[in-house]
């Protein structure tokens, strides 16, 4: 692939009606650049089509048809698969649990991430260390850390129950109890994502112009709390909204902890959307049902991602 275009085609054709030889030379160059670009972008384009675009189309086809694994033919059945999940208690439970999980993880993560970012930024010592410690869970392998959490939460030998018992407080079999399983999974979710929210808030704090603090000081805001109320929090507004959406997107994709620790149980108390997607598609081999769930997941994720992109744009403009 040694296409060496000697000049740039970005130069606009200055006079279209020059001598024929000249314009054909320019056309040759433009053509050569087109060919070079196609050669460079070709593999990525082919793979994007094969691994992203066609699969999405295929999911829609499977969701709208009666196709099963191994079948050579399919018949379009309209919204029958969607009607099936809409009438299925398992799917209702899964959707509701996912929503509850997101509603617990988002405020927990955003508020604690904000609090810790403010605390770190309010002083100068040990900043990097505190930031690293709080960020650690975000990059640690969640499958392995779920096992560590299981040991912490173990009903008899886990230190959580031992500490509670020591304080005379009630203990529980946290992951086997319908009332506690989802909140406990949400705590693990908050623990994992908090550092991520913190880093985004730290970046937001850094971008607040110093002038605003100086101006607030002249206006008589000299306490830490005054500055927080009059400058910091209002200026963090757009960032906060962005963090809410990004964390919601991550929380909504919860899977590893549920798959390893509860498999959706007890009963259906911790069944979530991606677990339903996984089990229906790959354990029970209900392709149509799995595809319909996939479309629901896709719709929610696309909405959140578009909101995220929009908020990011706005944040950039405000700066």
């Amino acid at each position, binding site marked *: *692939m*040694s*296409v060496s275009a*000697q000049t*740039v*085609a970005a130069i606009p054709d200055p006079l279209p009606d020059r001598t024929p030889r000249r314009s054909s030379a320019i056309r040759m160059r433009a053509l050569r*650049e*087109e060919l070079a670009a196609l*050669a*460079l*972008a070709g593999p*990525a*384009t082919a*793979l994007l*089509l*094969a*691994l992203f*675009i066609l*699969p999405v189309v295929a*999911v829609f086809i*499977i969701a709208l048809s009666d196709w099963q694994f191994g079948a050579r033919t399919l018949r379009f059945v309209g919204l029958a698969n969607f009607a099936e999940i809409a009438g299925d208690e398992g799917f209702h439970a899964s959707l509701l649990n996912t929503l509850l999980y997101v509603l617990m993880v988002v405020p927990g993560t955003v508020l*604690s991430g904000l609090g810790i970012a403010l605390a770190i*930024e309010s*002083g*100068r010592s*040990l900043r990097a260390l*505190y*930031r*690293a*410690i*709080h960020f*650690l869970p975000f*990059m*640690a392998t*969640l*499958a*392995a*850390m779920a*096992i*560590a959490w*299981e*040991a*912490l939460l173990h009903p008899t*030998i886990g230190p959580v129950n031992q500490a509670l018992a020591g304080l005379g407080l009630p203990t529980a079999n946290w992951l086997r109890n319908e009332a506690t399983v989802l909140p406990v999974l949400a705590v693990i979710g908050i623990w994992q994502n908090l550092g*991520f929210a913190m880093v*985004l808030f730290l970046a937001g704090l850094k971008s607040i112009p*110093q002038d605003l*603090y100086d101006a607030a000081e002249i206006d008589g805001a000299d306490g830490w709390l005054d500055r927080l109320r009059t400058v910091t929090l209002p200026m963090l507004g757009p960032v906060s909204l962005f963090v809410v959406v*990004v964390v919601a997107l991550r929380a909504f994709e919860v*899977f*590893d902890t549920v*798959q390893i620790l509860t498999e959706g149980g007890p009963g259906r108390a911790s069944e979530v959307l991606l677990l339903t997607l*996984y089990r229906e*598609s*790959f354990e029970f081999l209900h392709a149509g049902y*799995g595809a319909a769930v*996939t479309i629901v997941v*896709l719709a929610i*994720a696309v909405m959140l991602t578009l909101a995220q*992109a929009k908020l990011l744009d706005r944040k950039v403009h405000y700066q």
Partner: protein
Amino acid sequence: MSRARSLSRPAAIARHALLLATGAVMLAPFIWMASLSVKPPGEIFRASFSLLPQQWYALENYGKAVTVAPLLRYMANGALVCTAILALQILVCAPCAYALAKMEFRGRGLLFGLVLTGLLLPHQVLALPLFILCYSLGILNSYAALILPFAVSPFGIFLFRQFFKTIPDDIVHAARLDGLSELAIVWRIMLPMAMPAVIAFSIFSVVAHWNDLFWPLIAVKSPNLMPPALGVAIFRGAEAGSDHGPLMAGAVLVVLPLLIAFVAAQRWFIEGLTSASLK
């Protein structure tokens, strides 16, 4: 720097107290995991709380983790899969990003639209058709099934394109006048100048695939092929909660490589892992 004016003494103490307390909660699972991984079974099931063992049992637990379960094999699989994915992604994405950033061609807008569409899609949504694709290619339960679906990264193309756009056109013109081919410009000029983006993307990609459980669960059944996250999950299922020491040793081994890398290159990790949401 007057927004972080020196705090009064009580305020400074309160700050450290708060951050040490929350920090302890963040570290608790890591510490407990490490503690159990060096304790003998008798001490694990003892009611009294202690972090350090009375009798060190590390050799036995870690020995069991790498013999009873092929933990080292899982980690080698992880290294192989992550390296192959990253190499393919850079090989495929960088030339495409260069074409998008610096060249004129028909369909450029359309191609960029494809990239943005790819960015919108969570990978789990593609699992069902990718499973069918791998099945029809006959590569299910092989390294290829773990690698191929990630051969192109829309995020990689996007990130490299953004970075390449900031490199002045004059540099590209000069390279062309020197007779460099377009591909040579990508490898010898653009990528070296875009090193920060390359490092951030590499960390993002390796962390994502070392930690991934969802796709490996679908793609491979043979323990010989399992990457670390799936391997340790299977190990837990096999142990069924009876043999805590070796299981915790296994979990420590899976977490450790990224942990060490994180401590060594904290800033790069934070940048690499947050860049994906700032796209």
